[in-house]
């Protein structure tokens, strides 16, 4: 165990030591614009969703970048209803390792607002809607394919705080129906988001 910890510390030190020789500016002042595709997984009811959106990034320091994003995710609830989520938010990205490698890993954390609408295909069930606030954290990596273009893969866990909105499936076989409920009390709901984005570097702002 001691050997493993010493080895990991040495590896991290080497990474940070190499970082001393990184490009001076890093991400400072970088402006980039991109598109994203998002998959929402492992929500409490195990219904995956697919979404699309966009983002722009503004680097505030050599090793700190900010990402401002919006996306729209749609999930099919067992062909009985549909859930739609729209996110708008921002994240801060921290780069602890090399900035000019074939991959540039980062850790991220941020905040967003979300609008959720769940409706049943039965037509006689009122849809559930809510606005919520969320925090997210995760890791990702840029894959620079060109000086002006990168592909980014990231995974983040997002926790929403808002009034409770829930649904369940009643019945069986052809008699199944989606029942939707809301309550005024606050609730926490989390889900994992996997995002693939493509980003084009536009300019250095400062």
């Amino acid at each position: 165990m001691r050997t493993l910890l010493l080895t990991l510390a040495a590896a991290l030190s080497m990474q940070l030591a190499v970082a001393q020789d990184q490009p001076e500016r890093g991400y400072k002042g970088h402006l980039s614009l991109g598109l994203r595709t998002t998959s929402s997984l492992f929500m409490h009811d195990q219904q995956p969703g697919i979404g699309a959106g966009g983002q722009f990034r503004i680097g505030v320091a050599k090793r700190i970048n900010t990402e401002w994003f919006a996306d729209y995710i749609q999930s099919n609830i067992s062909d009985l209803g549909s859930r739609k989520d729209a996110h708008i938010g921002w994240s801060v990205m921290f780069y602890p390792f090399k900035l000019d490698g074939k991959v540039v890993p980062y850790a991220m954390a941020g905040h967003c607002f979300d609008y959720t609408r769940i409706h049943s295909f039965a037509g006689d069930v009122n849809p559930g809607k809510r606005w919520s606030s969320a925090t997210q954290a995760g890791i990702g990596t840029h894959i620079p394919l060109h000086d002006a273009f990168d592909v980014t893969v990231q995974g983040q866990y997002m926790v929403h705080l808002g009034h409770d909105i829930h649904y369940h499936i009643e019945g069986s076989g052809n008699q199944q129906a989606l029942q939707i409920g809301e309550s005024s009390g606050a609730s926490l709901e989390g889900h994992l988001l996997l995002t693939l984005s493509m980003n084009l570097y536009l300019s250095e702002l400062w």
Partner: protein
Amino acid sequence: MVKRILSLAFLALMTLHCLCQDFNRKGILRAQATISPGYYLSNGLSDITVHGDLEYFITDRISLRGDGYYLVNYLGDAGAMDERMTLYSGFSYYLTEGKALSPFVGIAPGVGIATGDELYFQQNQIQYVSNEPGVFPLISTVVGCYYFAGKWFHIFGQARFSAGTYTTEFSAHKAGQLQLSFGLGFNLSTRKKSD
């Protein structure tokens, strides 16, 4: 028999010639419009769309592209969407460097806009509803190949696999498709002569 052998040999030589021809794709702006047959992966329905795209090569091996498809009609049985337009934007990676023959793979998120009429059963009655336009997200991958035959033209062939779900107030329909496109495209170089 001799003619067949000579024909095959000629074809092989021409293919080899195509493979060896140099062509620097950096700075090339290309576009095309064609008719594209599509096959729905979920229910086997087929349709015809008008497909147009615009692509710019930021390097010899990486390009940014946008594609649009507009539904013309179904082949055989009609699907849930009476009108459909899908737009994609993404990038492609080219497997050869500096060659006229340009196989590639790409990935592009997209968005679909569709309308459709449908019947649904509510309170022991069949209701007919004309849906408002619905917007749904899509993800797609594309594989294909271009042959840049000269300064202005190229021949292309590609296949796009997409995934997504078109949802109305009363139903969900998988919109994932395999769409094939081929034909003649146009290209021009935006590089300065000194490059």
